[in-house]
């Protein structure tokens, strides 16, 4: 296993389509829920412990070899908003392309064939981590970190927030990202023993509602 492979996968410049998405931050900015560094931090904290935890658990479970079809159905069940389900599959498809080009593997090819229009992004992230020789905790860290890094960089563009302030938010959240990743791996081990029913189902209703509204906007900077 190469430690640096985790840096490649977690790099915000990894070309998997994430740059066009704000993780719900654009809707939250419009609604006045994110107005600066402090409210960005609260937004990210909320997203980390809900959508981030679910994503990290899915990613870790995929690394541990849980059947992809079951994980994908479990992800659907944990994503009430149709707009967010569509985004998760779109990003899953884009990540699949990047992962197959970066770490060619028969397993990735097989899943790409099974889900031509994309599986949920977090479980593709888990499979990509596996193809890169990484472990469940690595994948969980990556998913948990992505759940906050996406909104933080989007808010730099949306509010012209000082980029140092946004990066400070991520640094302050780092210990919580670690704890969420640990919890996710524990949950994923539970899935191996007891099935996908024990995957966390923490939900963030405002993210779901905001995403539905955002999908109907005529003018927006981000795809979601």
């Amino acid at each position, binding site marked *: 296993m190469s430690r640096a492979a985790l840096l490649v996968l977690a790099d915000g410049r990894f070309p998997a*389509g994430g*740059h*066009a998405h704000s993780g719900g931050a654009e809707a939250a900015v419009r609604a006045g829920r994110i107005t600066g560094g402090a409210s960005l931090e609260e937004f990210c904290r909320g997203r980390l412990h809900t959508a981030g935890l679910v994503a990290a658990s899915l990613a870790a479970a995929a690394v541990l070899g849980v059947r992809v079809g079951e994980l994908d159905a479990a992800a659907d069940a944990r994503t009430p908003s149709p707009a967010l389900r569509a985004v998760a599959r779109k990003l899953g498809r884009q990540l699949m*392309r990047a992962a197959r080009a970066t770490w*060619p*593997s028969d397993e990735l*090819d097989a899943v790409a*064939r099974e889900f031509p229009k994309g599986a949920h992004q977090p479980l593709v992230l888990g499979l990509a981590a596996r193809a890169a020789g990484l472990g469940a905790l690595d994948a969980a860290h990556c998913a948990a970190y992505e759940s906050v890094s996406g909104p933080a960089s989007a808010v730099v*563009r949306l509010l012209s927030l000082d980029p140092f302030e946004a990066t400070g938010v991520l640094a302050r959240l780092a210990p919580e990202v670690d704890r969420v990743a640990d919890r996710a791996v524990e949950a994923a081990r539970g899935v191996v023993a007891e099935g996908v029913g024990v995957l966390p189902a923490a939900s963030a209703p405002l993210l779901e509602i905001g995403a539905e509204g955002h999908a109907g906007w005529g003018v927006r900077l981000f795809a979601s």
Partner: protein
Amino acid sequence: MHLDHSHDTPSALGADARRPDGSRRALRIGLGGPVGSGKTATVAALCRALRQELSLAVVTNDIYTREDAEFLLREAVLPPERITAVETGACPHTAIRDDISANLEAVEDLEDEVGPLDLILVESGGDNLTATFSKGLVDAQIFVIDVAGGDDIPRKGGPGVTTADLLVVNKTDLAPYVGSDLGRMAADAKAQRAELPVVFQSLRTGDGVKDVAAWVRAQLAVWTA
């Protein structure tokens, strides 16, 4: 990991010339350039010139609206199922160069859904003089500038002006009104680009439109040879 073996892949990854079924994919031509230089209008003119003889589709990269796609739909240059809009997250050059995933997905879907296609035009959102397309996304690129943006743009150069496979200097009909010297623009472009072609175009008078279409036909002839 199997970094060195070839795969019976379920879909192409990027610039592969063949589709998964072994057929040749469509030629992809990118159109980039500054905001308002006439990229969308050039795409529309190309569609009108070529749609009788070629199976065509267009991908637009709007920055924060769907106006470019809607303009093409309104002008009815192609049936709606042949026009796809990609959203670029406030960063048009990222979507055509640094992270081309959404655009690759759009061209693949067009080939799957309305193919077989001969040609896909990928129009960038309006950007600056450094915006260029990744070779993983397009086979050739056209950079569109206009005379009203300043006749010193060819002299200033930059990756778009210097390296694009075709430079289009648009809105030549406006030159007398904005004080742009077309001769100077031509000489500067020649100095920056050596043998690479330049077309001076006016969509109002129709000047140059045929030359741009002829250049695209020549690219296609090489692609299918």
